[in-house]
């Protein structure tokens, strides 16, 4: 079985599992909303300030929500001891990892699909004319978040205090991604929206580097 086909099957399994209850998705969206509301108390969201701080706050909300959402990815496998069964299947380790990465990417994207319009409404930012470019930035940023987050979920699944450990491992590592995503989003929300090529290239580079690293190290990650 090819890696792609195996990953697709794992992806289907993850989606099926999540859409039975949808508890993770709803919890993620609500938590991100709470973060967005809390930030509104930290600064007065006038038009100028929303444009300045808005993108930063949006991405921080995504990072925090993502850190919580990515935990069950491997924690569930570890608790139910199903990772052994997955490893015994005649599929490569990278297929398992890739399937989970794609599943988390889809969940995160669904959450963002809900959150970005709500955020635009709450902070009076206009989305007209920048939707497709914003989607590009969101896709690249979310991909980086889910690749590293899934890998660290696999790492922290073996540890105690994994709910605390995952953000602790993930957030310092994601600072370049945060900077790049915030800068790209800010230039899109500016008076004259523009797509910042440098930062987009940086985001793409970040994704490629960590996807490659995950591929090289996947077998060590999935040992039980």
């Amino acid at each position: 079985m090819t890696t792609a086909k195996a990953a697709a099957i794992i992806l289907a399994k993850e989606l099926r599992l999540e859409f039975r209850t949808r508890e993770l998705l709803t919890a993620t969206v609500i938590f991100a909303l709470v973060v967005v509301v809390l930030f509104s108390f930290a600064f007065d969201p006038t038009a100028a300030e929303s444009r300045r701080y808005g993108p930063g706050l949006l991405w921080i909300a995504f990072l925090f929500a993502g850190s919580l959402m990515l935990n069950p990815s491997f924690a569930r496998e570890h608790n139910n001891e199903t990772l052994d069964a997955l490893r015994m299947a005649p599929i490569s380790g990278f297929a398992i990892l890739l399937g989970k990465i794609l599943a988390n990417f889809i969940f995160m994207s669904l959450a963002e699909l809900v959150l970005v319009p709500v955020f635009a409404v709450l902070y009076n930012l206009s989305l007209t004319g920048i939707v497709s470019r914003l989607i590009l930035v969101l896709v690249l940023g979310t991909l980086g978040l889910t690749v590293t987050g899934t890998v660290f979920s696999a790492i922290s699944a073996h540890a105690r205090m994994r709910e605390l450990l995952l953000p602790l491992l993930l957030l310092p590592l994601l600072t370049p991604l945060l900077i790049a995503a915030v800068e790209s989003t800010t230039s899109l929300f500016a008076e004259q929206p523009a797509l910042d090529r440098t930062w987009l290239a940086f985001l793409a580079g970040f994704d490629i580097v960590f996807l490659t690293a995950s591929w090289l190290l996947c077998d060590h990650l999935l040992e039980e």
Partner: protein
Amino acid sequence: MKARFAITALVALLIFCAGYAALFIAPDEATMHAIQRIFYFHVASWNAMFCAFFVAFYASVAYLVTGKRKWDALGVSGVEVGVICCTIGLITGPLWARPVWGIWWTWDAKLTSTFILWLLFIAYLLLRGLVEDPEKKASLSAVFAIFASLDIPLVYLANRLWRTQHPQPVIAGGEGSGLDPTMSKVLLLCLFAVLCVMILVLVDRYRLELLRNEAAELRYEIESRGLDVSNGQETPALQKGAQ
């Protein structure tokens, strides 16, 4: 045993010479005067930190390739020593900055990147503390160390691209550019001395880790075989196996 004592004594002498040189032999800097002398140890600890983290990166890769526990021991030693050197740098920096810049800290590219580096490798140490199984601890922390090391150039690049839009505080005096010849000699001496101290501590920590691993293995061996190794004083754990 004697060789180790001699080497330790030599390194101690070296660091004393470096300290003396930095405090008394190096000429007084034009604008900053006495506080500038902290620069000799500040730069030296960064240098030592980079070397320590490089050793840790190399050891992590070697562990994943070979599977030998000694590489894991070297990895954790490198990270621990590197974190200490980083902490020294992060403390000496603000101590210097306060009288010279008037501020304790600024979020420029170098400082932010270094702070992230410190946080990442502290996370490594926390990860090691929270995973119990030794083999899993070794492989997971090796994977994390590789990810962290890959991230460092990205962090620095991102911060550089980002922060150059903001005005930078003026860094007066020698940062390696156009140093007075005596100053550069003292700097080289301090670099070498602090590096030697770092290597000494790293090797000792490595030996300690190897001994700990050996002791743990022996303890496990004793318990699994249920041997009676008590000499009249029975410990509860051993009594259990000695039935």
